[in-house]
């Protein structure tokens, strides 16, 4: 039967460790326990940092951590934050992020972070402690069916009952987490297995052949795609998180190919930064709160080149009216993404780097050139949409507009010499950040796209700051979201992390309020965040720095000061409470049915 009986005996009578690989292990001894194998396997997989929170069922691993110096453990204040920090670390470095949590509540608290990583395809390994094998199934203290609970929110998970299989499982977990479409992997480790002595197999000697996703494209399809691209009259590149996940080389190749063709390019929320956003060929983000020009170009294009994006409902809007006149090329590492939502005329299963490299080679070999006159009139059309200036807003008087605050933040970042990383929470501020901040490089923008997890941004910023100690890391936050993981102030203070939390404080759950205003008859049910804390005092109470801006003049001063702080800083920017996030495609509407802000220029074809 598929559910084989647990081999409990193997654990109890663990054989004497076989010959340990000649290479010295981090503990400088011959025999390793399960807990030590965990550390050794992580070191061998290039891990230098792990985010975690101790508890009864992981004490042996914490004991092993205490006795070595290769891996730095970052103590978070909530297990959800451990996962988000690991995600921030992973996204900002391109490496696998690691978390360590205890059984029961430790594991269940990690579930949101795991699901977030699954939906955004972030490579994360989470080790969960488990009650000893002989107590599994008895409703023991802090027991939860972790592999059962996390099966739906992981790419793969394991319950390790045999210490001699542990190292191979960890090596496979790293391989699975980062290969193909990346994702989270859970390794559930009972306490007795952590104590048991066992044999260690290094990664090079582990068989990883059972999971080998396809990365090389089908060349005949690439040739057909490039021919379609070359013959296009109204083409558009639509790129997503897959290009970021494929690595910096993919972003470089994308930029090369887009420039080679002279075609417009738009990116999803997850894909921002793969193509430089300050370049004139970039139309900004598309989708529900994307730019007018990006969405209209998607709607009117004749060839759509989707690379590493998945036709999310927040991107497509109403499906039967989605880009009705276009041929669609869809390149994705995950075969199940192709034809899942939107039928592709050419579907190519491949890694974005390999697909782009192949497309550039074919374009050069066949000496293709774009249809210059068609392209010229296409850009003219796009410039018409651009002239609407859909992101216009009016900053006047003494009330700070959120968009203005972000433009000021961007200006300060531009002047700063440090490398900068931006994370966000979820809501209006997130959409404004995607609209107003500019990313010219991949891996510098981290946001919860798929799951939309409030509370993501601050721990993710901590992860990014740990990975890049000298960088400028800013979490653009909302007043409601930030409270979901505010306890991480302690983590930031403990490790002297100068993360900046830039709160656009409108005292509302802004996006909830916006939907209630537009769709629920202005009945603001439970969306006013009453009894907000004094964020300045809150920061100080944790041992950080707090400051507040209530007027545009104060904003300049506060941002200038924030850039200089050397410890965690909350900047409480009191913004216009009535401001809504536009443009907006309401649910169930098409790309050409966007609602524009009253401050945008008039466009006669819109419904507004």
């Amino acid at each position, binding site marked *: 039967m598929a559910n084989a009986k647990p081999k409990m005996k193997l654990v109890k009578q663990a054989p004497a460790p076989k010959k340990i690989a000649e290479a010295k292990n981090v503990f400088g001894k011959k025999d390793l326990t399960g807990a030590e194998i965990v550390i050794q396997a992580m070191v061998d997989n290039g891990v230098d940092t792990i985010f975690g929170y101790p508890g009864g069922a992981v004490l042996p691993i914490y004991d092993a951590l205490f006795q070595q110096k290769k891996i730095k453990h970052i103590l978070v204040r909530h297990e959800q934050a451990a996962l988000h920090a690991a995600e921030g670390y992973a996204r900002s470095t391109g490496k696998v992020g690691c978390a360590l949590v205890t059984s029961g509540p430790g594991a269940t608290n990690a579930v949101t972070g795991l699901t977030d990583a699954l939906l955004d395809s972030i490579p994360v390994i989470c080790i969960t402690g488990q009650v000893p094998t002989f107590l599994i199934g008895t409703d023991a203290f802090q027991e939860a069916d972790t*592999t059962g609970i996390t099966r739906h929110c992981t790419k793969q998970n394991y319950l390790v009952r045999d210490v001699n299989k542990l190292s191979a499982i960890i090596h496979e977990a790293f391989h699975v987490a980062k290969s193909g479409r990346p994702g989270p992997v859970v390794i559930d480790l009972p306490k007795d297995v952590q104590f048991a002595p066992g044999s260690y197999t290094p990664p090079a000697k582990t068989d990883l052949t059972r999971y080998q996703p396809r990365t090389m494209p089908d060349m005949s399809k690439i040739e057909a795609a490039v021919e379609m691209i070359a013959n296009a009259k109204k083409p558009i590149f639509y790129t997503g998180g897959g290009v970021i996940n494929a690595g910096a080389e993919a972003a470089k190749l994308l930029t090369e190919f887009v420039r080679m063709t002279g075609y417009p390019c738009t990116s999803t929320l997850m894909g921002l930064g793969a193509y430089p956003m300050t370049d004139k060929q970039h139309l900004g983000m598309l989708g529900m709160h994307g730019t007018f020009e990006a969405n209209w170009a998607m709607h009117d294009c004749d060839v759509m080149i989707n690379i590493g994006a998945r036709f999310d409902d927040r991107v497509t809007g109403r499906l039967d009216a989605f880009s009705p006149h276009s041929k669609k090329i869809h390149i994705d590492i995950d075969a199940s993404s192709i*034809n899942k939502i939107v039928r592709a005329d050419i579907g190519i299963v491949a890694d974005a780097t390999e697909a782009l490299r192949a497309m550039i080679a074919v374009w050069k070999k066949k000496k293709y050139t774009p249809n210059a006159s068609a392209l010229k009139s296409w850009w003219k059309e796009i410039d018409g949409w651009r002239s609407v200036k859909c992101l216009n807003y009016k900053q006047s008087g003494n009330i700070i507009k959120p968009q203005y605050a972000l433009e000021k933040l961007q200006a300060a970042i531009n002047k700063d010499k440090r490398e900068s990383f931006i994370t966000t929470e979820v809501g209006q501020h997130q959409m404004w950040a995607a609209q107003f901040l500019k990313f010219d490089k991949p891996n510098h923008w981290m946001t919860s796209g798929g799951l939309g997890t409030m509370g993501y941004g601050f721990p993710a910023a901590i992860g990014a700051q740990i990975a890049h100690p000298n960088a400028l890391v800013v979490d653009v936050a909302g007043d409601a979201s930030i409270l979901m993981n505010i306890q991480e102030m302690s983590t930031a203070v403990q490790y002297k992390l100068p993360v900046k939390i830039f709160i656009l404080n409108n005292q509302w759950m802004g996006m909830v309020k916006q939907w209630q205003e*537009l769709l629920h008859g202005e009945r603001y049910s439970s969306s006013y965040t009453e009894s907000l804390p004094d964020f300045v005092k809150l920061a100080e109470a944790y041992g950080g720095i707090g400051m507040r801006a209530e007027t545009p003049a104060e904003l300049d001063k506060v941002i200038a000061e924030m850039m200089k702080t050397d410890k965690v800083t909350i900047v409480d920017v009191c913004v216009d409470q009535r401001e809504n996030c536009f443009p907006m495609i309401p649910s169930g509407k098409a790309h050409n049915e966007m609602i524009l802000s009253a401050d945008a220029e008039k466009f006669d074809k819109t419904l507004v």
Partner: protein
Amino acid sequence: MVRKSLQDKISVYGAAPVSDPILSHTLAIIVDNEPGVLARVVGLFTGRGYNIESLTVAETDHTKKLSRITILCSGTVHIIEQIHHQLERLVPVHYVSNLTLEGAHIERELALMKVVGQKEKRIEALQIADSFRAKTVDTTLDSFVFELTGSPEKIDAFIDLMRPLGLIEVSRTGIAAMARGKKGI
């Protein structure tokens, strides 16, 4: 301020999906026989709202620890294609074959059926069992247990005939399926 005209134009919900005809397809899935693999496969169906009509699983290669799962699933062409790709994505899944799409194949199922009755009904049950080539695997003075192997349709037909003759219990294995011809998985 709300522009009232907007409220007529925008809806809270997205457009409903278009409906296509529902088909039944038989998938053969070769998986590593490891803990949780069946839960992962079945969980994929429940999690994504796909339908399973029949499921059979057993280890088929004891040395390599491989199991074969046979699933009869239903959905639109598009959904069945998605099921196929989603299954292939799972780490312990080695191979997925859509037997319905790949040409002629055989489907067989085994059923045990208990029929309780006396006199003419008993004789008639026995005669029908004989014409279906069902085996009588247990007999008492007032009951039979029949064993029947065949296509699911044949078993359905047999059950329908037995119902008025005192059928009280049915146990079915679900289908085992294989492509015709020399090509193997």
